[in-house]
């Protein structure tokens, strides 16, 4: 699954990602130049899902470069800084970009980063939550510093994408969907399991196969 991590410069995108992939806070983080790639495999229920993570530079001058990476992303992690109102006010622009350039079923998770700095908070949880609801994106607050809630947005995003696949809205077999089943063997397993993506990709039997995720407790 391909994810892009977007948001204003300095909101802590690279730190969030570093915490997610290394389980550690990235000290002395510098501005990202262009885009950086990393990956991590997560377990969602019984599934092992490889996430290809594209960390983008938030600085304006890289906008033209980073925009090209939205193409075909299945998930977007949209990051703002709860201690910076400006980073929150610009969200609409980021989201519009992502929706315009990403795949149509792009699943977006809004992350209010730096939740450890409660004292400097400039964006209330409720306000961000309302914005998220209005714009139809998931929302969480996290801290790349403490690692608090860092995995959740990625897992939440993956789960939503899987749900989209199940509902037939997303076809992983097609190029550019941002999702691919790495291993054919895995796919064979899939096609015989309840989470049968194979059957969906095989034909247009929308709704013919009733699928259910094995409970929300399995992930997130």
């Amino acid at each position, binding site marked *: 699954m391909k994810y892009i991590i977007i948001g204003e410069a300095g909101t802590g995108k690279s730190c969030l990602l570093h915490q997610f992939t290394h389980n550690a806070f990235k000290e002395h983080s510098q501005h990202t130049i*262009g885009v950086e790639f990393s990956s991590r495999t997560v377990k969602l229920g019984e599934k092992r899902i490889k996430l290809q993570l594209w960390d983008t530079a938030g600085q304006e001058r890289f906008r033209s470069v980073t925009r*090209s990476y939205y193409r075909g992303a299945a998930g977007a992690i949209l990051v703002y800084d709860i201690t910076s109102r400006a980073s929150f006010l610009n969200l609409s622009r980021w989201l519009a970009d992502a929706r315009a350039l990403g795949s149509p079923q792009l699943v977006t998770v809004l992350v209010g980063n730096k939740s450890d700095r409660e004292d400097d908070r400039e964006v209330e949880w409720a306000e961000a939550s309302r914005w998220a609801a209005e714009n139809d994106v998931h929302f969480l607050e996290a801290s790349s510093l403490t690692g608090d809630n860092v995995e959740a947005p990625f897992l939440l995003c993956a789960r939503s994408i899987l749900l989209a696949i199940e509902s037939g809205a997303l076809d992983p077999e097609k190029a550019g969907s941002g999702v691919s089943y*790495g291993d054919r063997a895995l796919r064979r397993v899939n096609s015989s399991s309840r989470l049968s993506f194979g059957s969906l990709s095989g034909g247009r039997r929308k709704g013919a196969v009733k699928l259910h995720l094995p409970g929300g407790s399995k992930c997130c």
Partner: protein
Amino acid sequence: MLPSPISRVNSSASQQPNPLSIRLYKVLAANFDDDATKAAVQTLAELYGPPGHGASKAKGKQVQRDSGGDHEELDEEDGDDKANGTVGTTRDGDKTAVSSVIETIPGEIAAKARRGLRRDVENKLAESSRRFLAAFSEVDKQLDTLQEHVGAMRTRCDEAQSQLRETNDSCRSLLDRAGSLREQRQEVSTRQSIVTAFLERFTLTSEEIEAIVSREVPVNKRFFKAMDKAERIRDDCRVLMAGEDGPTKAGVDIITKTSGYLEQAYEKIFRWCSFEFRQMGRDSSVDVHPSLREAVRRLRQRSELLTEALTTLGQTRQSTLLSSFTTALTRGGPSGLPRPIELHAHDPLRYIGDMLAWVHQAIAAEREFLEGLFGVRAEEDGRMVGAVRQFTQSEEEEWMSELMDVAVGGLCTPLKTRVQQTIRSQESSITSYKITNLLQFYMLTMQRTIGEKAALSRVLQDTTDFAYSVFYEAIGVQGRSLSAVTLDTDDTSLTPPLVILDHAQVLREILLVYESSLGDDIAFYNKNRTTERNQEQDARRREAAAEGCHSILDKMVDPAVEMCIVASETKQRLVPNWDREVFVVNVMTYLQSVLEPFAFTAEKQGFIQSLVEGRMMQLIEDHYTNVIADTGLGEIVEAWKSRKANEPLSHLPAASGTRLQAALHSFSLWLTGNTIDHPPRLAQLLVQSLATRVHRAALARLVHTYRWICDEVRKPENKYEAASTLLGSERPFGQVHLLWQIFGIDEESQESKEQEKLTF
């Protein structure tokens, strides 16, 4: 509880009388002093007593017979005796009665009795003996038969024994043989287990062979296990044969056979890998099955097979990537979303950016795939591609970069063609420059990711160079076009002409692009200039940045400067009263203002500044000349300058006291006039500060001139009458410091600053 009398009789008949007789003898032999004996004897006496005692005798006989038949009766009697203790006394009475019988012949009765008794007893004994004999003869008869049987049996037994002996004899040899056989068997089974162990160690089971050979069995754990064993067998054999005994036939056989299987195993791996690799091409999967990874690892033992298989892989990946690229370019994502990249071909930056981003992402995925295939996970998951990669030259790394090169290599040509086409079709040098920057950015990114030698890196290098050359060519053309420009002679304005404005606009945008592209780090360093190291790096980067834009500035600024100078000269010739100096300074300062926001243009700014400075000196000179003429002091100064040696100045006709008076008056008027603060010429200068500077410098010189005038007037040898009055009659009344004040110039600073510059 006592047996019934009948049964007692029956039983007594079969019983031996011996106990009775024994008892009798015992009784007879005893000394009969005890009461019991006495009683018995008494009884006997009654039985065998003289007639008259017949009844009692008969009775006695009966009793005798009875008691003789069963001594239990006696016991009973004894019991009775004991029971009835009183009886004794009555018997004692009887005894006295018996002893009272008188014998006819002494002892005759006793003898008779004895005889009777004896007879009875003997009869009885004979009778029993007879019965005994009869019984025994019966027994004897039986015994005879028995003996016969026993005899027969003995014969048999003897026969049996002899047979047994014979058998025993013959058995012994058998047993011996059995024993030795057993030993042999033991030996054999030991050998067998050794052989089994050996076979287990040195041969493959049929299942294992099947796993290796059969096409039915997939390449899986079972296969690898069998292969491991084959390998171990071969190695063990080699070790064994390297021993003192040298190669044995069995050893050689085993090695040959096992090696054969191993070869088949490698072949099988190879076939399977090739097959899988071909599949892999079709559905661009990124996850690698552990078996495949293991297969590749093993195939390294057969480098020619590995090479061949990987070549297949490289080719499939290449064509896969190429077709995916083409799809992304021309058809886009599923159901056309995201839109095909070529849809944006009209937007060159987006077009090229999308293509390069696509390639970058393909490379990242490919790299992941290859790392999975070769089991290289040095930094486990979290490696950042952007980070500079340490190119460790392991075998895997070599393979990976080679495969990457092959896979991505297919994209080079279509990418290059499209990019070059786009570059060529650009009319705007700004876009050209943006493209160049974008290409350079990706070139650096790729170099860091896949190495400088990778085909794609080289292509990017080439296209970047090409883009640069196109861009330089474009700005070169633009610069050269300036030199052909002539200034409009009807235009009286002194502001920079439109061509310059346009040109500067392009320059500004290029510099903006330049700043943001190199900025990488500059922006960061500006923000984080805390440590010395950073400052140092900052400086170095600035230098590098300045270096990089040298040629851009040369190509953009120099022609503009030159055009300004040359064209203005031409115009000046045609329109003499056109203020060229101001125009030139205006254009130059405008160019400077364009460069100013960009720190890395400092050098060029310096160059222009020096030109401006030259013009400024000229302007100051001109302005001073104008000012001094306007003040009216000019004539005096001129006149004085024309004096002959030592001639008093007042004697010069043009500098007579009256003329001086008039000049001072007009100066005084000038001082109160309007132009003193706002000289009309300098108002044309676009940069106000320059105008001020020129004006002030001119005024400062004016002050010096005034002071000089005062000094000269006051000198006696110049023979001005009432010199002080003359000077004091008009402002500033011969007081230089007052003049400074009027001009609003700080005397001290100006004195020192302008001192050297002033020449007379």
